[in-house]
């Protein structure tokens, strides 16, 4: 696939809560190309996390389309290459999208290694030995080779989040979604997690990152999306967004956070 091929296209995305009293997403259109590193910023309650969670349907949108690799995953059926109507299995699509959460969400009853190999073994039918070998290699990459047999409770926050990232990478996703990956971390552990994400960005992984770390957004993001009140207010390169903000809303936001 060409490097600028469209991977995810979102149109008219709305997510309402409480029968429409709260419009977390109010008509969002955006496309993400292969190799993009999209950083979503904005004030609390602006809908950034909801937007991210709609991309892999953890949040089911009220209306709108999420087209992932040519398939609208918000619908129950889709038409395949041969023109047949096929029932959509959301699990198949989620496998191709890795997700990292603010609160890590490691499985506390499993060791680090078991956390990582569970999905490849259960879903991809990979044999245990191959999966463990692969897991150890990834752990080495993030400097946690010696923690393979530890339980999540024995890890620091930064270590947990690094494990969560490589757990998602085990499935070889085509896009990685990060939902405020450093917000629950102690300040001294933020760096080690950002380092892993930075390295991932350099390797060419397509990523969507929701974050409050403006410095990091500026450095790693290739495209910045600024959201407020459930809408995308402004998009552009880091230079455009941070050095030359156009909308008053963004100017106001940047004045407060920088």
């Amino acid at each position, binding site marked *: 696939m060409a490097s600028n091929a469209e991977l995810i296209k979102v149109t008219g995305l709305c997510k309402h809560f409480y029968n429409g009293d709260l419009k977390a997403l109010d008509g969002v259109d955006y496309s993400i190309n292969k190799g993009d590193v999209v950083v979503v910023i904005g004030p609390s309650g602006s809908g950034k996390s909801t937007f991210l969670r709609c991309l892999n349907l953890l949040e089911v949108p009220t209306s709108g389309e999420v087209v992932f690799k040519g398939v609208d995953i918000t619908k129950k059926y889709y038409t395949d290459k041969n023109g047949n109507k096929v029932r959509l299995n959301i699990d198949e699509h*989620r496998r191709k999208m*890795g*997700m990292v959460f603010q609160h890590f969400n490691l499985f*506390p009853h499993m060791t680090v290694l078991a956390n990582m190999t569970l999905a490849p073994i259960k879903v991809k039918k990979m044999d245990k030995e191959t999966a463990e070998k692969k897991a150890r290699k990834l752990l080495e990459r993030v400097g946690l080779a010696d923690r393979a047999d530890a339980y999540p*409770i024995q890890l620091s926050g930064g270590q947990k989040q690094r494990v969560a990232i490589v757990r998602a990478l085990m499935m070889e996703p085509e896009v990685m979604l990060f939902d405020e990956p450093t917000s629950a971390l102690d300040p001294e552990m933020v760096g080690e997690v950002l380092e892993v994400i930075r390295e991932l960005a350099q390797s060419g992984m397509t990523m969507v990152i929701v974050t409050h770390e403006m410095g990091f957004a500026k450095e790693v993001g290739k495209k910045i999306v600024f959201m407020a009140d459930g809408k995308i207010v402004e998009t552009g390169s880091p230079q455009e967004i941070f050095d030359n903000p156009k909308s008053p809303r963004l100017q106001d936001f940047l004045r407060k956070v920088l």
Partner: protein
Amino acid sequence: MFTSAGFAKTWQYIQLFKEGLICTLSLSALTVIFGFIFALILALMRMSKIKPLSWFATCYVELFRATPMLVQLFIVYYVVFAKASLPNFKLFGFIRFERFFPGVVALSMNSGAYLSEIIRAGIQSIDHGQTEASRSLGLSSRQTLFDIVLPQAIKNILPAIANEFVTIIKESSICYTIGVQEIMYAVASIKGATYRIAEPLLIATAVYFCLTFPTSKIIAYFERRMSRGFKR
């Protein structure tokens, strides 16, 4: 009240207590197994998005928790199984199946109602982030339930399940009213044969205590062991 002559007489029928013990144990063990499976199904039904399923499970649980065990047992034995001709063979050579089986059914239906509420609370106590993480990795809702949510939920509710097991051992005594030959049935038989009641009751008390006390201790030990790895 207690006389040595009374104990001597009772002792002649000690075989009845041995049989009663075996019967109580099989009754309780089967009830726990069937009750748990049934409770799991009930709990899943109650949390189901399909309205008639959750409605049925809710009614079932409320009904069984709000009526006496004895009434339930009699309905199962005298009404439900009245016309059914159960095979009348004997388990272990003495337990009459046609009485034992309705006992197991009634106890399982009753404890299923209680256990399902425990299981439901256990499942709901697991952070939703666990489910989200699992689903985001591509695991199905079924795999998520059995590999991620249930193992953690069961660990959390183990003390309550153990409690229920102990309760079942004690409540199984009610089955003597339909002629299941468990420990209380032995007491009644010995009373009939010897006209002694205090001594058989004392022995029954001792036997029940010896069953329930170590059971709760053993489960408490496993609970401590299991939680060692991954306290949250």
